[in-house]
């Protein structure tokens, strides 16, 4: 037997064996399947390539608070300053929110900073929804007239009619854009110029997404000094079947039960139709002995 007998056949065999082996080992073609084979509980825990570090409490204790990066740069440096500010703001803690707000307001008249925010938003919209949302929030908080044109343009970006559809019917591209446009609406309503208010009212009526229309209703009303007048104005724009959104019950950050609960009671009294029917199904306790081992309390923070 010669080693070189029928080399083409040997090569074909090698390819076939390689393919079969790989498919068996890796499950290469198994994309998108709904059938999930049930793995057994793991005895061995996950591992990391890095050495363990300090506990989070030590990390947080070592952090310098209340020192947002400056937003005073001009020209080309403005882009770096804004990028650093967004990084800081994203990681900031609740007690640092006012520090960020002050820095943003102080930069209100810096057109280069405003422009740099708009460029960050445009870039992040394509690559990182969470950064785009955060940057839109920060730009809106500046309350800068220089941002109005951008925000107006943003809320008028064409709304996709199709895209990646979930089985519930949500189109991902629609929700992604609508949530960003809702944040841009917050900025326009907060700016509270005549033209910005007109844009918000227009979106209350005509935006294709209820996510944006609902936000526009809340944001417009919240920013009006005279709520009664604002409500009357709004009611001319709110769609007939969405009048209830005018009264949507809101829990403010830090609001206590004594403040919130009477508001809820009044809402339910004004809108008895929102009281849900009895849940479907027959209440039964199907409890059975729990076979799992509870690992106990999580590690101390």
């Amino acid at each position: 037997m010669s080693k070189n007998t029928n080399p083409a056949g040997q090569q074909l065999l090698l390819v076939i064996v390689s393919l079969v082996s790989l498919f068996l080992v890796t499950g290469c073609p198994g994309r998108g399947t709904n059938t999930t084979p049930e793995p057994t509980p793991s005895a061995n825990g996950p591992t990391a390539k890095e050495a363990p570090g300090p506990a989070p409490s030590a990390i947080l204790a070592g952090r310098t608070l209340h020192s947002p990066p400056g937003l005073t740069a001009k020209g080309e440096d403005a882009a770096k300053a804004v990028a650093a500010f967004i990084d800081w703001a994203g990681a900031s803690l609740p007690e640092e929110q006012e520090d960020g707000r002050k820095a943003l307001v102080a930069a209100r008249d810096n057109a280069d900073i405003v422009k740099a925010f708009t460029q960050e938003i445009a870039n992040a919209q394509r690559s990182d929804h969470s950064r785009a949302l955060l940057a839109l929030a920060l730009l809106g908080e500046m309350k800068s007239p220089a941002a109005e044109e951008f925000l107006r343009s943003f809320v008028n970006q064409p709304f996709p009619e199709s895209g990646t559809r979930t089985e519930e019917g949500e189109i991902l591209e629609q929700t992604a854009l609508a949530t960003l446009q809702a944040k841009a609406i917050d900025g326009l309503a907060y700016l509270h110029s005549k033209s910005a208010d007109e844009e918000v009212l227009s979106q209350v009526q005509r935006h294709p997404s209820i996510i944006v229309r609902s936000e526009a209703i809340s944001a417009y009303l919240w920013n009006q000094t005279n709520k009664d007048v604002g409500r009357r104005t709004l009611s001319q724009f709110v769609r007939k079947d969405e009048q209830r959104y005018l009264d949507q019950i809101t829990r403010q950050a830090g609001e206590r039960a004594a403040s919130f609960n009477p508001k809820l009671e009044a809402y339910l009294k004004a809108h008895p139709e929102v009281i849900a029917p009895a849940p479907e199904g027959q209440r039964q306790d199907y409890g059975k002995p729990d076979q799992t081992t509870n690992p106990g309390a999580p590690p101390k923070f």
Partner: protein
Amino acid sequence: MKNYQTKTCCVVLMLFCLSFTVFGVCNQTTSSQSERDLWNQHACWQDFFLWQFRAYDVREGNWNNRGYFDACNVNLEYPKHWNAAYLITYKLNDNNDQSWHGTIDYRAAAEAAGGNFHNHIFHLAIDDTSVFGRFTPPDQVKTSCLLYDNNTAGANNNPASRAGDFIHEGWHAWNARWGYNGGGGSCGHFNGPNGACSMSPCGCDYFYFHPVSVYVFGAMWENNGTASRFHSPTQVQVEFLCDVADQSTAPASVKVGARSDANARSAARFINGPGYRCGDPRPW
């Protein structure tokens, strides 16, 4: 020469197939800003994930090509999974006079152990991008690439939305535990569009409005067979997201995303909606 070409072909094929093994189908090359902001608060706390894989019953056989053995790589799925669990476990304020519910409630809904919230469940990652997550009776809580990939078209690939989905899917298990059918629609909810819910063909729930402080912490599971003491899966998700937004020490990017997700769901997914609005509309 031919032999060389054949070997090259085999190597290319091997690498192609291995790429699915190493990276799964979800794209595991990046992470979002909010992912990293939360991650940097713990900088990969190994004691936590060594507890978390048991608490969530995360199984090596399902997660081994998704970062189970590279658990400090924030671009991979398992690290993102435990990052979301970290949010649930440590970041809520638990203010009984202000929060909808407490950490004890959200943990019990999301974690594996059986009890009043549900019978035992375990967590799987799936590549089916037609859902964010799915509860497959009797015990599988599945979360998909849409909650992990940073380069998908969606808005939900962040730790707050992912954690919210753990609780949502866990609440389908609560439905099963207590004998409720969740609406009888094709996806475990009511069909739509229906009332103020614009989802079509399904994904609609009722909102069972309740005041603050009427559920003591640990009692979210309670129900009396009527609408007066009951929660739907999307409602517990919204309440959790709202507590992250307004009642937590999470980083700002996580809170902004949580508020956005809560308000979007409140506006679009409830038959008797809108549900609660979460926080005022000040931009930041």
